[in-house]
Each structure stands twice: as C-alpha cells, then as structure tokens.
C-alpha cells in the first residue's frame, strides 16, 4: 500500500544574485513499512526534499499525497492531526531541541502538542518511550546538552515515534556519530520499524549506510531524482552517472593496506 506519493515536486531558492533550483520535477513513492533511502552528493537537494515533505516550507509546484490525503491543502485541525503522522530526525539534534530542555520535556513535547496521550499518563508514556530506544527512565530529568551524541539521537528517535507516526524522515541522522554508536542506532531503527510498521525516508550521502537499511533507493543529482530502484539493483548496477559515482566512491576497508589501493578519482566539477 502506498503511504506517500510525491509528484513533480519543485522548489527554487532565490538568494542574492542567483536562483537555485534545489528540487526539480521529483516523483517517487514510499510503501507502508518500507524504507526509501535517498542518496546524493552534498547540494543535490536532499534536505530541501525533507523540508518540503515535512511542510517546513512550501513547494513551488507539485503534489504530495500522504495517507491518502492531499498533504499540501490540509489546514487547521486536519493538518495538525495529520502532522502527528509524519515525524523527523535530523543530524544536529542540539540545534533542533531547546538546549536547556530536559529529555522528558523534549520527548513529551509532540505528545503535548498533538494531545496523543492524556496528561496523567504522560510521565509513564515518556518512560516507556525512553525504554523503547534503550535509555533508562531516569534520563527524563536530565538536560539534553549533557548527553552524548548517541544518547541525543536516541532521544530524537523517542520524540519522533512518540506520536506513533507512519513515516519518519531521517536527514543525515547518523552521519555525525562514531561507527559503533552509529551501528547501534541503525539497529534500533530497523527494530522499531519492524515492530511499529513505520516507513522511513532515510537521507544520507553515505551509500553504505543506506544499503544497510533501505529496501529501495532514490539517487538525487542537482535537484533531480535520476534513478530509483531496489537497493541491491542500484548498488550492483547503477544506471545514472551520479549513482555510479556514489558506488565508486564508497570506500572498502582494504585489509592489505594501500598497496591494494583502488580509490577512484572522477574529474572535479567546477562550480563558481
């Protein structure tokens, strides 16, 4: 069943002197319970796509259908109710949260806004969510800035799943983490997806990370989606230039060291 479908989405930025078409004619869909990975070089439009889906900015053109509703024309109460069904996890958690807020306040915020859990039960619900993401309930009273990067990302996930969304948009959510911490977070996300049947739109410039968690991939290049398909098909036989460049640039660990070096160097692009 299609959960989200995006048709001909377009967004342009007008900034000093030049216009940038950040997303151009983007069309794709996500099925219920599915992870769609979006890969692309920096500047290819991935974060703009995330902001458009989340309603953080309007598109210039295009259509978004989410849970069968015309997402862009929803207003008032309907919009608020529907918003609780799509949540987000970004890279810079500290930037996204109030810095001195406690973990409990941070997680409780969407529950309060969307009134998904009656007041008397909120403390219990926050404890349940913390446990869900592998943190003990005493974390609720601690300020977010005291936490490690991995713990903060767990809090961000708890907050995202608090309203029982059907879709979570993750924009470079694990990119700033150390390898081991990153892997634990990826495992947690996969486990939560299996149990809650959520869909993910998983954005990363790192194809190896996307391959680990995505059922399908979309490759973005200069605002356009240049290729979509099953993850293994794209990794094995990328059809687009951008897809081939991403596959070629994904480093293997060379057990023999640099004598066996295979780094590929494509021509630099000129962009002044």
């Amino acid at each position, binding site marked *: 069943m299609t959960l989200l479908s995006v048709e001909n989405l377009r967004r342009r930025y007008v900034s000093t002197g030049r216009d940038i078409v950040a997303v151009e004619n983007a069309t794709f869909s996500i099925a219920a319970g599915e992870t769609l990975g979006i890969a692309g070089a920096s500047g290819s439009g991935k974060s703009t796509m995330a902001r458009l889906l989340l309603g953080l900015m309007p598109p210039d053109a295009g259509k978004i259908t989410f849970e069968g509703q015309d997402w862009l024309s929803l207003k008032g109460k309907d919009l608020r109710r529907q918003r609780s069904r799509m949540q987000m996890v970004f890279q810079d958690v500290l930037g996204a949260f109030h810095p001195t807020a406690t973990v409990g306040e941070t997680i409780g915020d969407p529950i309060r806004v969307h009134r998904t859990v009656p007041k008397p039960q909120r403390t219990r619900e926050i404890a349940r969510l913390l446990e869900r993401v592998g943190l003990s309930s005493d974390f609720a009273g601690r300020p977010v800035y005291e936490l490690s990067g991995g713990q903060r990302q767990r809090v961000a996930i708890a907050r995202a799943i608090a309203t029982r969304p059907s879709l979570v948009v993750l924009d470079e959510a694990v990119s700033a983490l150390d390898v081991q911490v990153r892997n634990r977070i990826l495992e947690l996300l996969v486990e939560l997806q299996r149990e809650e049947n959520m869909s993910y739109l998983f954005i990363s410039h790192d194809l190896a990370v996307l391959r680990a968690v995505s059922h399908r991939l979309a490759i973005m290049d200069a605002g356009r989606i240049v290729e979509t398909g099953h993850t293994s098909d794209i990794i094995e036989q990328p059809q687009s230039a951008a897809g081939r460049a991403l596959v070629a640039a994904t480093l293997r*660990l060379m057990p023999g060291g640099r004598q066996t070096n295979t780094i590929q160097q494509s021509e630099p692009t000129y962009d002044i």
Partner: protein
Amino acid sequence: MNNPLCRITDLSVGYRDRTALTGLSLDIFSGERLAIVGESGSGKSTLARTLAGLLPDDAVFAGDIRWSSGQTPSLGRDLGFVFQDTSASLNPVLKIGEQVAEGAKRHLRMTWQAAYAHARNLLEHVRIPNPEAVMNAYPHQLSGGQRQRVAIAAAIASRPSILIADEATSALDTVVQAQIVALLDTLVSEAAMTMIFITHDIALASHLADRIAVFKDGRLVEIGPAADILSSPKDEYTKSLIEGHYDLASTPLISAGRRP
C-alpha cells in the same frame, strides 16, 4: 628502523578540566604516512595540535617531543596543516590568490609577483579548474570540496616536508572525499612528504596509510604497519572498529533490497 623524524615519549596533554592524552609514546618516520585513527574525543586532534604548536595557552603538557632536526618545525613553513573545517584554514575576506600566495611570499621569500605565479600553479596542481578565475574568488564562492583543495594548496605553498591532515575529508560527501583523498595521495607521493593523516574512519586510513596508530580515550592502543593492524588486529577495540565498518559488501540490517 632508521632514526625517527620525531620521537614522542610519555606525552600527556590536558585542558582545563580534562586529560586529552595520557602517556603517549610514538615515533614518526621521515617520509611515512602515519594514520591516527580513533573515535571522537580520543585525543587525535590534541596530538595534531601539539605537533603543530597549536595548543591553547592553558593546556597542560608533560613528556618529551624530540625532532631529529633539533628544532620544532615551524607551522606554515616546515609543517602544513589541513583542518576539517576550511573556515579554520581560509580567511573569508581574502581572495583565494592572496591567501595561497601569502605563505609562499613569507616562507619562500618570494616577491608578490612570483608568489602569485606560484599560487596559480598550486591551484592548478590541486586540480582547481580555471585557476585564473579562482585566484580572484572568495572562499564562500566555492563548494566545500573546492575550498578544501584551496586549503591544501595553501598548506603546501611553502613546500613543507610534513603535512598534517586532521579529518580533512570528514565534512565532505563521499564522492568529494574520494577525490580529495586521491589528491592528497598524489601530492604526498610527489613531494615525498611525511603525512600524519587523522581520521575516525579506519577504511579511509586503509587507503592512505603505511602505518596506523589506534587511539582510544587519550591512549595509544595499538600501532603497526597498516596491513598488520587491518588484517590481524591485536586489540579488541581495533577489532571492533574494523568489524563495525559498513561498506557495499557488508550484510544489510534488513533483508536485502526487497520490499517488505
């Protein structure tokens, strides 16, 4: 092995409220590529800053660093430094040409005219397309990858014999990272520079390094030839770094590429 270029003995460095390096002993050999690998906070940048003389004034320092030349290499002349964040390397209000020429003028005692010509050649050398135009551009007009190329050009402008790259590719996407790594590889080989390559990514180290040193919590846990560390790590932590690496051949966490 021959005499080290630099011998570090029992080095400890602390900042006001914490210890960043503890009892570090390490030799650096002339012409080698030494990778320093470890998770964030393990003390990698502290070692880089110590070697480059960039520690803050209130840092506490104990131990011994002995250079074979008898004197500490001077940053910008004998030792080039490439940071992760180009805003630490490049002045936002100076034209690219001026900043790259500056080091050459000062340390190679060139006239401005000669330094400018040198800078232009350097930009070409780090494969900046259309170097003439970029000479007159400001950093913000370039992409992250091009800015890092310029920062590398500035770092090698005085023809230093030592290059320290501290997470020089970590802020870049994977495609640009591969390009910059290939560039560093070429530059270091051509000039037979000693390179200290700092990264949290052990796979990246495997592509560049002759030797790998693994740091954890401010301590050196293991050091050796890259092939030994990568194929038969002795330390549990090193093993976990290697096993934790994901590439396009790792087992996916979901059943591969199939619809749910």
